[in-house]
């Protein structure tokens, strides 16, 4: 959904990006009119790059990153996600956090989440 995202024009990536958080801190939540930087630039994981377009960017318009609730953009959500995550430098905490791939369900692979 990045191609239609209101923050798209302001995304200037300098890879590898460092991703530290899944949810922004409460003082980091700004409406797109006030804040013009992409979540990925700010170190917050946004699932926009691997998610289907069509929700009118409801979460992004409220100042929150995409959760991927509309489903995958093309076949194989996990494979797409691994592709995009390979471009980032994930923090130690997130590297072990399997719930990135299983947000609305539970991983049955490898025991604990």
């Amino acid at each position, binding site marked *: 959904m990045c191609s239609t995202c209101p923050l798209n024009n302001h995304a200037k990536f300098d890879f590898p990006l460092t991703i530290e958080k899944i949810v922004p801190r*409460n003082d980091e939540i700004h409406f797109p009119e006030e804040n013009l930087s992409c979540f990925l630039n700010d170190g917050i994981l946004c699932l926009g790059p691997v998610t289907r377009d069509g929700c009118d960017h*409801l979460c992004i318009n*409220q100042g929150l990153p995409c*959760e991927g609730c509309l489903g995958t953009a093309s076949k194989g959500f996990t494979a797409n996600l691994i592709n995009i995550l390979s471009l980032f430098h994930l923090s130690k905490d997130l590297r072990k956090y399997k719930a990135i791939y299983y947000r609305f369900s*539970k991983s049955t692979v490898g025991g604990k*989440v």
Partner: protein
Amino acid sequence: MIDKVVAACTRVEGSGNLIIYLKNDEIYQTELNFSVFRGFENILVGKKLLEIPKIVSRICGLCYASQTIASCKAIEDIYGIEPSYKSILLRRLLLSGELIKSHMMHYFFQSFPDLLKIFNINHTINDPYNLINYNPQLTTNVFNLIKIGSEINKLIGGRMLHPITPIPGGLIFNPNRKSLISIEKYLKKGIYYIDTIIENFIDLFSAFDPPTEFNLSNPIFFGLKNNMGFDRYEGDLRIEQNEATYDDFQAKNYSKYFDKNPNLYGITFKSNSKNNILTGPIARYKITQNYGIDKISEYISNFGKKWKSNLLFLNFLQLIESYYEIQKSVEMVNTTSLKSKTKLEHLNSIKKSNGIGVLEAPRGVLMHHYHLNKAKIVDQVKLFIATEINLPILNKMITEYAKKLYEKEDIDSVKEKTQRMIRAFDPCISCASH
């Protein structure tokens, strides 16, 4: 030999089965059975705390705001913070929108055709087309109210279903003048619609006595009690046997009175009484007694004692609650603190390992309890859902009713009529099979 008769339970929220057990051609048990188990209490284990409100919202398509806000309250309890007054007002408005939508849908689509049949007014309504044509004005009013509920949720929650804006620490929405005017406009129209629906209910049914099979035999009422009056957001819990004997307790002490094992079905109440627990609009009415609005007392005075101890009174109370919530929302929209600019509370450090959030969802008490381990990761989740609490009394009443019916009627008629009683309870199967 035991025979098992299964009937799909229609016109309820979610998908459930009515199961009748026959032994020697006599009914010995009847139960409402859920064929699904979705395991949200397991899904949430190991997730990050701040992700939980968005996930639990998906438990139900009707009680989404209640689930999200109860979860936010539990997380705020863990962090030891209180959201701003403005955020609380907006949360209350969100809950009102949800309640209006949920109650109107249950009343009109699920219960209204049953009521017409029970009171022998009309036996021909068997499909949606007949229902819509029965009283086109009533249909229009109901649809308008559902739209009002949805629009309020869309405006404040950011989405019609599964709201985005409620987060632990507050609610991300700064209402401007335009949005407040549009909410007020919707609500003022809503008062007219709900007035006509309540008057229609009184005209149609108040002259009759409700059937005795639907009488509630001394249930124990369970709900939220706020000394300020009827309130679904804040307060202590109350278990009330009758007006004189009751127990008030804070939500954090709930395990003295009831508990559950997340791996097993159901909630266990530690009570010596043989009577079953009931929560929901009837319990809220019995516990609060007075809604504090004269017109509501006037409406309720049309119904006598027989109605007030009957399950079918729940339908009328749903209309009354919708009326109350619309009136209170109009007052809330006009408060000056909604226009003030306040910042979201910061979630600095975790203060406690247990967090409990409780509120009254449209169908009764909803409680979320999260427990953190030493690494500050969620390791146990308990969700106390109203329909789970009501299931024992529901199963007891439908068993008695089915036994009585089977003495005179055939099994198909028993299946159909027992489902009327299930629908009168307004079970939310999506929530209960969380």
